[in-house]
């Protein structure tokens, strides 16, 4: 960080907001009104929606107040822009002190390049190891050479967590005498009944591809094991896409598509466009992540509920698509890493967790029991999350398996839905890409 910029930060003592480059970045500076800031911090965030960018601003203000007016200048990015801009800024000797770093394709290369500061000592000091169980915290760990995810030092701490499941319309369920399924067979029976009765069973959209991966991941979660899904994502123990669990899940995915369990027009609908279809009563269920809970809650209130993918057999294991949100990391651009760590501690503090909960988001860690109200959407979501957390049943986002595999996996799933390929060919294509990614 240049001295000129620090001087500039010190002199601006009020909250400012404005658009920066390309309209995709909003810049805000926050400091206590009457203090002269001894230091300044720059924070790049992917919290780009009004709710979470508002939380970031509030937290930056309270941090400034509790740290002698230390100014926090935070810039809001679209998630993809953040991933593309951060490495290039750091390589040029610029960039933020603290940034949210995507674990799937950015964190590893940044660790390898020495651009991030290890948080091991800070985690001990601030108790970050206690926020999440090891299985979730390890998603922010990489070996020193950046090649091995899931082990080594801790490079980021998340404030949020995510889980994918099924929002359901209570009125439609009650009207047809349906209840939340406890096994895959029950679930399929419900889906078949709804289709027969002319009700769209599951709303989601595969046009922009990502929901195809989530739907497949949910089904795969019912057929896989903790060991396999971890090995596949962490790229260890010769994991391969050519696995029976992948084949079973693909066959089930095709079966559901052919049986009409997915809503009509699913292949021409964007993922986010499925949510308003569901909230308008256009389908009995919505396959979506917990991040949509706020919108669903706003539109439907407690007329909506939430459940997780049931197991193949009662009492069986399911590893749900999900994980941790973008974690906060300290870059090698930080002149005062200790101060940067204090900012992260503030961003993942109880105060931050409370604000995220109030906004309907899913903060990292277990949700307090007093927050769970039976019969409400958020109550069912929090309860489902706590159950999955306790059972170590949070799976992964499957496109984390290799950089660039998103397009290949989504493409093969779209082909499977349209009958343009078969399971063997899809598995072979995926495995070839996955194997080649180790050589790239």
């Amino acid at each position, binding site marked *: 960080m240049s001295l000129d910029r620090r001087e500039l930060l010190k002199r601006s003592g009020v909250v400012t907001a404005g658009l920066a480059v390309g309209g995709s970045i909003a810049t805000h500076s926050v400091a206590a009104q009457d203090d002269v800031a001894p230091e300044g911090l720059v924070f790049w965030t992917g919290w780009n929606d009004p709710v979470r960018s508002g939380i970031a601003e509030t937290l930056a203000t309270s941090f400034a107040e509790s740290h002698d007016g230390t100014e926090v200048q935070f810039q809001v990015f679209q998630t993809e822009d953040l991933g593309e801009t951060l490495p290039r800024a750091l390589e040029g000797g610029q960039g933020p002190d603290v940034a949210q770093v995507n674990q799937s394709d*950015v964190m590893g290369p940044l660790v390898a390049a020495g651009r991030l500061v290890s948080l091991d000592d800070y985690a001990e000091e601030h108790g970050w190891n206690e926020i999440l169980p090891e299985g979730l915290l390890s998603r922010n760990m990489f070996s020193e050479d950046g090649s091995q995810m899931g082990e080594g030092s801790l490079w980021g701490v998340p404030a949020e967590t995510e889980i994918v499941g099924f929002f359901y319309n209570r009125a439609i369920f009650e009207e047809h005498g349906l209840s939340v399924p406890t096994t895959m067979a029950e679930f399929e029976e419900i889906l078949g009944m709804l289709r027969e009765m002319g009700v769209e069973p599951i709303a989601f959209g595969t*046009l922009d591809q990502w929901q195809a991966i989530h739907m497949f991941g949910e089904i795969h979660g019912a057929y896989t094991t903790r060991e396999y899904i971890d090995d596949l994502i962490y790229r260890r123990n010769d994991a391969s896409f050519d696995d029976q669990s992948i084949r079973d899940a693909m066959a089930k995915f095709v079966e559901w598509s052919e049986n009409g369990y997915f809503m*009509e027009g699913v292949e021409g609908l964007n993922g986010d466009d499925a949510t308003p*279809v569901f909230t308008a009563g256009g389908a009995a269920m919505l396959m979506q992540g917990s991040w949509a809970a706020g919108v669903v809650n706003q539109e439907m209130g407690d007329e909506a509920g939430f459940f997780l993918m049931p197991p193949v057999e009662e009492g069986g294991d399911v590893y749900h698509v999900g994980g941790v949100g973008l974690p906060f990391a300290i870059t090698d651009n930080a002149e005062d890493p200790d101060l940067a760590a204090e900012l992260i501690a503030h961003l993942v503090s109880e105060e931050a967790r409370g604000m995220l909960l109030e906004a309907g988001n899913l903060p990292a860690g277990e949700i307090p029991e007093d927050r769970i109200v039976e019969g409400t959407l958020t109550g069912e979501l929090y309860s489902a999350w706590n159950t999955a957390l306790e059972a170590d049943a949070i799976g992964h986002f499957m496109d984390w398996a290799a*950089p660039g595999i998103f397009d290949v996996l989504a493409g093969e799933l779209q082909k499977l839905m349209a009958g343009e390929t078969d399971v063997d060919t899809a598995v072979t294509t995926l495995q070839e890409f996955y194997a080649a990614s180790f050589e790239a």
Partner: protein
Amino acid sequence: MQPPSKPDSILTTTGTAGNAPAVPVSSSRRRGAGIEPWLYLAPGLLIFTAFMALPTLGSLVLSATAWNGVSWDTATFVGFDNYVRAIQDGRFQTAFLNNIKLIPFYVLLPALLGIIPAALTHQMRLKGARWFQAGLFLPYIMPGVLIGVVWAWILNPVFGPVNKVLKNLGFNPPTWLGDFTWALPTVGFIGAWAAYGFCYVVFIAGLQKIPSELYEAARLDGANLWREFTTVTMPGLRREIAVVLSINLINALRAFDVIRATTNGGPGDETQVMALYMINSAFGANQAGYGTAIAVLLSVITLVGSMLILRFLGEPDE
């Protein structure tokens, strides 16, 4: 085409032009003349060097490396390996073929959709043509991403107006952008819609330089509208057609924004194109060297295609 004008004013500084008397030139003036042109050129040359030459050179260097796009420490020199890999890469081949399939939509269709109203408004001397021109040109100045988002909404199979109307008429419409058969023609049609206003304006400009006497002579000879079009309009628009086809070809080969905003290359690889594959390889798969090699190949293919069009459709004396 008008012959280039002779730079008489320059000649007077170094010798004689026509009957102008010789002007004695001092030695200091001669030395100044050596530097002066460079001073005029310097601003443009600096901008060209900074924003064209150096990035091009940098891209060529990058394309010969295996680099993750994050840290230079990880870059290794691999020579032409990235180019060999691209040529052998089935997904790149698919993307290239999809760009070729887009040519009728991006190149020919907008030219056709532009030249017909241009010729009609010109030959029939329609009133209010200026408003018509402004309306047709509007899509061309809209950002491609916005066009993609709007068309994705129009063609949405669940709540889009197109399928609602078709269903009310008793048809069973496809999902357009999500349909393996219709996705590529649909993004092609959107691309054509975005470009035909530009073609129209270029053709209108070209038509205005065709002497009206030619049309009057054709009418005196009994030519109808079609005959006027084939014997006067088309030959008179030869240069404009070359320019339009050349620019449309560049747009077809570098197609990205509309496709990124509508299908993201899907379903499957049906609308995967070279520019999209380049971006996904460089930034999605963390293979910046390979992505840059694809960018260089894309540039070379575009350059060759444009040169071929200008060669065959340009002025005979060019």
